[in-house]
């Protein structure tokens, strides 16, 4: 609180000054520019811990369906024969985990689909994308109990986290595979990715 009443300004001017304290919005570009500078200084990392946008499950499912269709149409047979792990790059599986949180994104669905498409297409053109599939929403969980086999049916929406699909990539190292996974827009929109190296027996 201020210590003294004004001796030089009438009350209505002081009141007007106080109303000047508020909020103003800078140019919309400033946010992205600031993020770029922070990235260049290695003070933030893109694609890790990003939860500021989430997509409704239905939008993700639609986007994923389009992505996988595009990949299939554009690259023909997707399941490439395993490469020689001793000579060629190793293969990795990106398991896309969907969460149930539904928050308005403010992003048009077509832009979302474009973003996933661009990412997958770019990987394919660089020869790193080996395949991918979207999984249907139905889930059957099998487990053995003392009383016999139990089969539990559910849907993806019944679980806090569930697998929505996968991509298979090839990369020179786990670190490279991690970088590829970190660039997937799935992370930006609230999902998470389990990255696993395929073991060749």
């Amino acid at each position, binding site marked *: 609180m201020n210590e003294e009443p004004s001796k030089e300004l009438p009350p209505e001017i002081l009141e007007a000054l106080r109303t*000047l304290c508020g909020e103003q919005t*800078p140019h919309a570009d400033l946010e992205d520019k600031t993020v770029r500078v922070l990235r260049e200084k290695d003070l*933030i990392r893109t694609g890790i*811990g990003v939860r500021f946008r989430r997509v409704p499950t239905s939008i993700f499912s639609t986007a994923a369906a389009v992505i996988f269709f595009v990949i299939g149409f554009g690259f023909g047979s997707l399941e490439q024969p395993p490469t020689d792990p001793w000579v060629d790059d190793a293969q990795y599986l990106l398991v896309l985990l969907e969460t149930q949180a539904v928050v308005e994104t403010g992003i048009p669905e077509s832009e979302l689909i474009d973003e996933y498409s661009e990412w997958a297409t770019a990987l394919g053109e660089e020869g790193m994308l080996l395949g991918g599939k979207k999984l249907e929403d139905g889930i059957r969980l099998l487990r053995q109990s003392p009383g016999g086999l139990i089969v539990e049916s559910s849907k993806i929406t019944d679980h806090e986290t569930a697998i929505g699909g996968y991509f298979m990539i090839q990369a020179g190292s786990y670190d490279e595979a991690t970088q590829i996974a970190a660039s997937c827009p799935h992370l930006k929109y609230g999902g998470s990715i389990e990255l696993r190296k395929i073991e060749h027996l």
Partner: protein
Amino acid sequence: MKRGSMASTPEDRPLVEEFIKTRGEGEFRLLYRRHTPRMYAMAMRLLGGMKEEAEEVVQDTWVRAIERLDTFAWRSALGTWLIAILINRCREQIRMRVRREMPNLEIVEGGKSPTWDLQGDLERAIAQLPDGAREVLVLHDVAGFTHSEIAERLGIQQGTSKSQLSRARAKLRHFLSDTTRNNNERRA
């Protein structure tokens, strides 16, 4: 809570802790969107309405804050801490600024205000104040800081803060009375 300090929202601390752990872009953007509007408003006032300079200062403030964020001890609200960094950055900007030919309030025969809007007149008057006087007026009369807080943030004596405020208010009063006289003459 003073007008100029932005108390941390309940979500600030967990968000900051998460950001420090992950350095995630998403967490940063949330912090940015939460605090930037007030930071930018303060920068605009302190820099006399210079938009590009204010944006540059806001960006630099965030960079400095993020560089030091893991040493922030939560002895004040996050917003207050950000404003403190911003104020220092504004002072540096003012010192670096090429001095423009700003009209001296003693010799200008009142501002030619195109509108009779008090808020607009105040904005114009504040922009024309000398830098030191403007800093103190904005921090005291607009943002609500005390003289001891101003002295600490600006590295000046409390007496200097008080005299700068007095000078700023006198110039403001002079400018506004001349503006009112000009407006009345137009109406007549």
